[in-house]
């Protein structure tokens, strides 16, 4: 199932890029994220709790950042297993300038196996969009916080 969309950040590209690669910001932005642990370069093990209808459950898995092109794009490869089945995702995020801010455009594919596929396939797209929306909103906050911290650091210096 294909999922695509975009989100506007009121921050410069370099700041958005840095936040999107920051494990702390990623963890804080992922909805229901209970564990987020670096296990290699750009590779993280995670546990996520999802509370949406047919795909409800706790998923453990791995997320990898692949093919990063600084300030331009990267791919997120996600796989997770939970009681309702397995989920695999592969999304490309692209950054572009828009006025003073940055637009993040994403296109990706979500695959499900097991009960999620059987029972939840019609809900999966909606759930994925909902979660990506939550992620982007939270990430916006993370970008702002990082900028404030940066400002504070500069002022302090």
């Amino acid at each position, binding site marked *: 199932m294909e999922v695509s969309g975009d989100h506007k950040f009121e921050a410069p590209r370099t700041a958005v890029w840095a936040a999107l690669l920051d494990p702390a910001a990623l963890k804080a932005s992922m909805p229901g994220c209970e564990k987020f642990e670096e296990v290699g370069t750009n590779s993280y093990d995670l546990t996520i709790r999802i509370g949406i209808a047919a795909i409800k459950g706790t998923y453990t898995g791995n997320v990898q950042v692949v093919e990063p092109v600084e300030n331009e794009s990267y791919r997120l490869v996600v796989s997770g297993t939970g009681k309702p089945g397995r989920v695999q995702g592969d999304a490309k995020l692209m950054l572009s300038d828009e006025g003073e801010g940055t637009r993040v455009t994403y296109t990706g594919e979500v695959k499900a*196996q097991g009960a999620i596929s059987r029972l939840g396939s019609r809900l999966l797209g909606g759930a994925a969009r909902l979660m990506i929306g939550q992620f982007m909103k939270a990430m916006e906050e993370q970008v702002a916080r990082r900028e404030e911290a940066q400002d504070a650091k500069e002022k302090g210096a």
Partner: protein
Amino acid sequence: MAVVTPKMIGERIKRREDPRLIQGLGTYVDDIKLPGMLHLAFKRSDIAHGIIKSIDVSEAQSMPGVELVITGAELKEFLPPMPIGTPFPSPDHYSVAVDRVRYQGEPVAVVVAADRYLARDAADAIVVDYEVLPAVIDPEVAMQGQPALVHEAFENNLAVPYVPGGTGFDAEAGTVDNSAVDKAFAEADFTLSQRMMNQRLAPTAMEARGVVAHYEPGKDTLTIWSSTQNPHILKTFVAALTGIPDNQVRAIAPEVGGGFGCKINIYGEDYVAAALSKQLGKPLKWIEDRSEAFQATIHGRGILAYVDICGKNDGKVTGLKIKLIADIGAYNMILTAAIPTLTMLMLNGTYDIPAIRAELTEVFTNKMPTDAYRGAGRPEGTYFVERAMDMVARHLGMDPAEVKRKNFIKADQFPFATQMGAVYDSGDYEKTLDLALKNANWEGLKAERDRAKSEGRLVGLGVSFYVEVCGLGPSASLPTGGWEYSSVTVERSGKVTATTGSSPHGQGNETTFSQMLADQFGIPMSDVTILHGDTGVVKQGIGTFGSRSQAVGGTVLMKAGDKVKDKMARFAAAMLNPNEETDASEMVFQDGTIYFRDAPGNSVTFADVAAYAYVPVPLPEGLDPGLSEQAFWEPSNNTYPYGCHISMIEIDRDTGEPKLLKLIAVDDCGTVVNPLIVEGQIHGGLAQGIGQAMIEEVVYDDDGQLITGSFMDYAMPRATDFPRFELDKTVTPTPVNPLGAKGVGEAGTLGSTPCIVNAAVDALSEFGVTHIDMMLRPEKLWRIINQGGKS
């Protein structure tokens, strides 16, 4: 033999089963509760194809209340692969996967626990690590050996590489002479070709599967309750696999809430319950949930056909070539490989086509296996032939009913040996066609369609004719044996108890068989009890499939009844004329009395004769006490019922949504014992046929994930999807059995699919479309309307 005046046979008697069923007073497998009973749950594969790298059962095992967790590899030590009932080479198929999974939903481990919910939770806690292999989904790609092999030993995924049939095929020599077929096509005025898919369906019985197995160690006996269509076959197979002698196994089919063929099979869950009950010495229960039923109960249909049909411009069809590709899924179940051969057998349809070439290939894919589903191979054959005949009519601009008439096997040609090797027993197709056309007001309907079309509405008419092989059958054509068994006992009170091996799951045998015995003995129907579905009570049996209950089971019931009646007549004769030599065949059984034909005024009551037979003082010479007899009987041939279906459909020009406006059916199933039950069977068959034509389809995605895994995604037809069915019948008895009954249980699924698709093509004819694959999804029809005839 005594004379019987038919009274109940032919009457519209309400089913005596229904009051208990609609009041919730029936006992189904899930109602069986035994002391100390434990519950099973199956961990099933989430992936379609892969190697099992490891199974971690530690968490499941540690849960309080969990008695046992066992994997396929462990079960293999004491549970052999499942047997099948077809002669084709077959890969080992274990009840629980051993080292590799081949379809989503295949069991990989089993939990035994104190309750059903705990068992499910524990199964969820099992962690399986797979090496995922590419899923084999498209049968035509699979035939190239791509993208993987489902079974290493089966090259190019060919389960059955090539079975030829038809004109010039010599089964004994195994040779094929194509000259007649080639000549027909070379000399034809036209040839039409079409690829047609008869899509996969889910049987979706209202009651899903279920089993209770109770092994008693002290007696070394196993009692197994299962929602099955054939308890005697279940008993035989379970005995063979568990090593318990078959005279120590009792199988019981209590109320069975629908089967439609899917409960012919004996499934892994049945064997596992039996084997683990023996292992643990405790009763075990497993009840399938709906999600499991979609994944792991056999599917039906799934046959692709490449059809070439040729003929003369006057409408005479001279040749037919059909290449069948059956997508049978991951394994052979009991009849899997045989079902598509029934498609082949019926490719003559109702027509005298002089040259036919059929070829069949069966292909393994990573899907749930297919097997018998209402019609089992014959609806597919009917669909391909009837679509092709409709294409001929459309090509020639002829009335499709007239093209059929021109090509029909004529009434004086029966018994008719077809090019495909069947011998049709009896028929008068034109009579049935004429009645259907008359009932439909065919000319009026055509005018109505033309008027609607001139107003810009997309209205179409379809007509189809079918013939079906039923009343299975001689033992030569069934690996289980093709007979049936019955016993009839007149009790001391004069009540009658009969047993039948025809184990019903909605056929209403208790009603029709009671009607028959009531007539035979001249007693009220309410004095007759029919027992079935318990191998401890019914000594032998085959079961219910292939529309055989009435034709085979009904006939053998009558045979057993005749034996008892002969003996009872002799007891009655001895009572009436104790001192004379009399002819018992002159006895009449009527209104609860027995008398000599020429002395109706001097009678004994049925009950008095029964009492006498059990305390026979004096014992008449040459007679033993008691009134209980049994019979086995098998027919010399199958039966071939047939019928004509006509439909009218309208498709919304803006949305593509189809609506079935009319369905007129005339069916001929020979002698009818109970018209109400026959009509009910036709209604059910039509519902499932209309479902296939219009809204039902099992869909797997490219990774072999079942997308239609619930009733939210798999569309079941409802009453509001149907017009009022306009039914009628012709009666052409079969010479194959003394009743003249042919069978009707599957008929509705045969005529309905082609007649509806023919109507849809007719409705969309202005867009140049010549064929539409089922089901008639609005989006598909919208594309035809909006994209110039391309779906």
